[in-house]
């Protein structure tokens, strides 16, 4: 379901070529980190990207509500990426734009431009784990996933929906994170996260994220078209549908500045 016949055969080919390379004596922690680094490495060089994101919020009773956001990202070498989210819907927040500078070492920085007030407001760096636009995604779930934001521990190899995956745990390094632990299923041939489980402060499973409909761009970068987040405790869920991905559109660093926010 998740993969086309072509990618499945690639997966098999990768399997046949893979043995030996990862069987060196390393601790589960080292192995987890190595997988994360490899994943990060494979996504390097995208330069910038834009996409449309549709958020479908679903409550316990299954009713839906939709939000539309445009996303722009800029790759920053040596530090976390920068991103802009421009809200188009609901109408009363149209034009509201958030700017995020992710960092590897220090906490991310975030600002929000409010068109009704014509002002840019900084968002407290401690609070990044609340719901994003009322959805089941916390800001930290959709922010740039820098390697240094977690420590890792490889668990096992496992088949996930007919794909070979590495299963590993990762632990947020930021004490203000809403999670104590995440378990991630990374497909072995493409190094993309297919499934992610989030554990809350008391160690209970809180949410599961399943990514699907991956598309390859510029013959290199895999992006999911659908992200499905289910909150097991509240019974609510959110689907993110991405469309119209563009890469290397010529965005500049100055487009991701506080001053540029007002011009969106």
């Amino acid at each position, binding site marked *: 379901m998740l993969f086309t016949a072509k990618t499945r055969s690639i997966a098999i080919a990768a399997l046949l070529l893979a043995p030996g390379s990862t069987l060196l004596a390393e601790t589960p922690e080292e192995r987890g980190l190595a997988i994360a680094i490899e994943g990060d490495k494979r996504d390097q060089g995208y330069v910038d990207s834009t996409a449309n994101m549709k958020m479908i919020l679903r409550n316990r009773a299954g009713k839906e509500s939709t939000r539309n956001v445009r996303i722009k990202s800029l790759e920053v070498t040596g530090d976390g990426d920068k991103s802009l989210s421009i809200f188009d819907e*609901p109408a009363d927040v149209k034009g509201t734009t958030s700017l995020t500078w992710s960092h590897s070492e220090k906490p991310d920085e975030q600002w929000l431009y409010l068109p009704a007030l014509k002002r840019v407001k900084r968002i407290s760096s401690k609070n990044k784990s609340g719901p994003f636009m009322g959805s089941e995604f916390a800001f930290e779930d959709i922010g740039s996933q820098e390697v240094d934001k977690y420590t890792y521990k490889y668990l096992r190899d496992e088949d996930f929906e007919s794909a070979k995956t590495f299963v590993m745990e990762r632990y947020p390094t930021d004490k203000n994170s809403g999670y104590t632990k995440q378990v991630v299923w990374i497909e072995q041939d493409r190094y993309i996260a297919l499934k992610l489980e989030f554990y809350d402060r008391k160690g209970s499973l809180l949410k599961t994220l399943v990514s699907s409909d991956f598309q390859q761009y510029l013959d290199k970068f895999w992006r999911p078209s659908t992200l499905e987040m289910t909150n097991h405790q509240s019974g609510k869920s959110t689907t993110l549908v991405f469309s119209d991905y563009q890469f290397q559109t010529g965005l500049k660093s100055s487009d991701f500045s506080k001053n540029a926010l007002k011009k969106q």
Partner: protein
Amino acid sequence: MLEKYMYWLVKLRWFAILITIVTVGLLGSGGRLLSFTTDYEVFFGDSNPQLTTFQDLQEVYTKNDNALIMLSPADGAVFTTETLQAIAELTEEAWNTPYSSRVDSLSNFQYTYAEEDDLTVEDLINDPASLSDDELKKLKEIALAQPLLVNRLLSPAADVTGINITFELPTENANEVPFEIMEHIDQMLLDIKTRYPNISTAKTGVVAMNKAFPESTFKDAKTLIPAAFAIILIGFMVLTRSLWGTVGALIVMLMSIMAAMGTAGWMGIILTPPSASAPTLILTLAVADCVHFLITFFQQMRSGKEKNQAIRESVRLNFSPIFLTSLTTAIGFLSMNFSDSPPFHDLGTITAIGVVYAFVLSIFFLPALMSVLPVKVPANRKAESGLMNMLANLSIKYYRALLVVVGVLIVGLIAMVPSNELNDEFVKYFDDSLEFRQDTDLIGEKLTGMYFIDYSIDAKLASGINSPDYLQQLESFEYWLQSQPEVIHVNALSETFRRLNKNMHGDDSDFYKLPNDKELAAQYLLLYEMSLPFGLDLNNQINFDKSATRLTATLQNLPTKDVLAFEDKVQAWMSNNTPSLETAGSSPTIMFSHISKRNISSMLAGTTIALVLISLILMISLRSFKYGLLSLIPNLVPAGMAFGIWAIFNGQVGLSVSVVVAMTLGIVVDDTIHFLSKYLRARREQGLNTEDAIRYAFNTVGEALFITTVILTAGFMILAQSSFAINADMGLMTAITICLALFIDFFFLPPLLIWLDKRQSKSAEPSGTPHPVN
């Protein structure tokens, strides 16, 4: 038929005993399947409209299942480094409570303020150990100025503070969950008290209450059931003066309870405090069957019959009365299935099953057991028969006076019935021997109320809650509620908007008012939501498409009628002032406020059907339409009088009373059956006149009726000591009714029979031609 049955029963008595033990063992083994509910919602049927509304509301926002912990520092000051540190530590630890989804406290209250041009949203208390006296003073000022904190998590005098934990309770193993949660909280509080010995704690909330249900049941099971056994056995011993008779009765009672509770287990019934009182009821009702069998048995032996012959004679004489009384009692209890409140279905069903088992045991097992036991004839009791004769003569001699005096008493007491007021303050279901009640009262007195009403205020459009018009109306409703004397605290989103507007204007208090623009409001909210930390989002107040908000009004402890009056007042105000927001209030308080009324109307049908069935049974068994009709008086009047007495001495009736009429009907009808059947037998078989037939009835069943009444009263008076008010009220009311029933049977029914007879003989030919019977 009966002769043959008795012949074989006595012959195969060892086999009968064995087969009973095996059967009871098999049935009783279902007892291991029984579990206790820990959810107050079980009191409401699936189709209860108040429950449905509340569930819908909880579906939209977060659930209300919570535990509230109150911290009281000995020095009466919350704002000291020590206490604040304790709050911060406890808040941090509270997140680890199983199934918790949110923790709200003074320390993690999201304090918002302007910092240069930015909105800062942060925990009110950071690093409490480092705070200076000035900073503490300033914090206190800030906290006391937060409408969302005062009277909710902080007392106005800042001498006590609360930590509220909200839960998402799982549906599987639901009955274990409150224990798991409260165990964690108890451990947490123990740790805090070790570290901070000057802070005392109390806890309440829905989860604490849910755990109090089985707690109250276990407490009762440990004290009431043994007490009921002890008192009834002593009473039985004194009244029958037979050791082996008492032993036999004890075994029948134990077996009836085991078999009935085991059957409940096989049926998958989950016990609630009302249904868990079934053992006490079965115990009491089983005694009555044994009394009738044993008293006749002893009378027969005393009159010189051989033991097995006496047993056979006793079964012959008692089979139909015990069958009839068991049938009517079972019908009365089964009619509780009409109740709107499911725990009473189970109570009625389990007790009815127990009554049937007790019947079978007392005419099958008990005779067999008596046959093998070395029973001696107890000493004769002339004095008491003399007493019965005296009562008979009294009732006959003064029949006119009794008719008038008792008649006036009946009418007078029944006239008092309407002055009873319905009251279901669910916290008061638990008596103050239970920690939950003590803590809840303490928290209610010092911090905040347990009773609240939620209003889901619908803007009817996605994002509609941001519109100035909606917010204005929400605010006027909020302010109006705050001005009501019943209201302790109001939590409304309008407060958040006013605060944000002020923060966004450099904390200028002139802007402590609603934003007057939809986009502005929406963008404030977006910014604020993005600034909130994990778990402290607005999902408990705003629905997912921002078309409705939840407003919560916390009320003082009010009796039900005041809650209903308050809700009426709210509805009237809304339809006059904010008609577009009109919505019904919803909460456990509202649900319990309607429960008695709903139950009374649902039980009306059940009681009527039981009454019709029981009257039909009486007419058939007495073979008389007239006496069947007449029996309505001694069957119904006692309950009416009991409610009258209740009105005089208590005046507050709750959920339990809705089932009392149906329940007592089945029990008091036994007295009527016994009395009237003996009376009619005397008239028909022996051709006695009314007066002598009354004397005959007194002499033959008077003693047994007296003894069963004493025993039943004792049993129900023990239930009246329950730590759960519903059971206690039910027990006391039933005890009163049973006593009154005997009173009516002795002092009103006989005069009525004489009076009717006199009237009849005056107006028509004497109808006294006795029918040949048997």
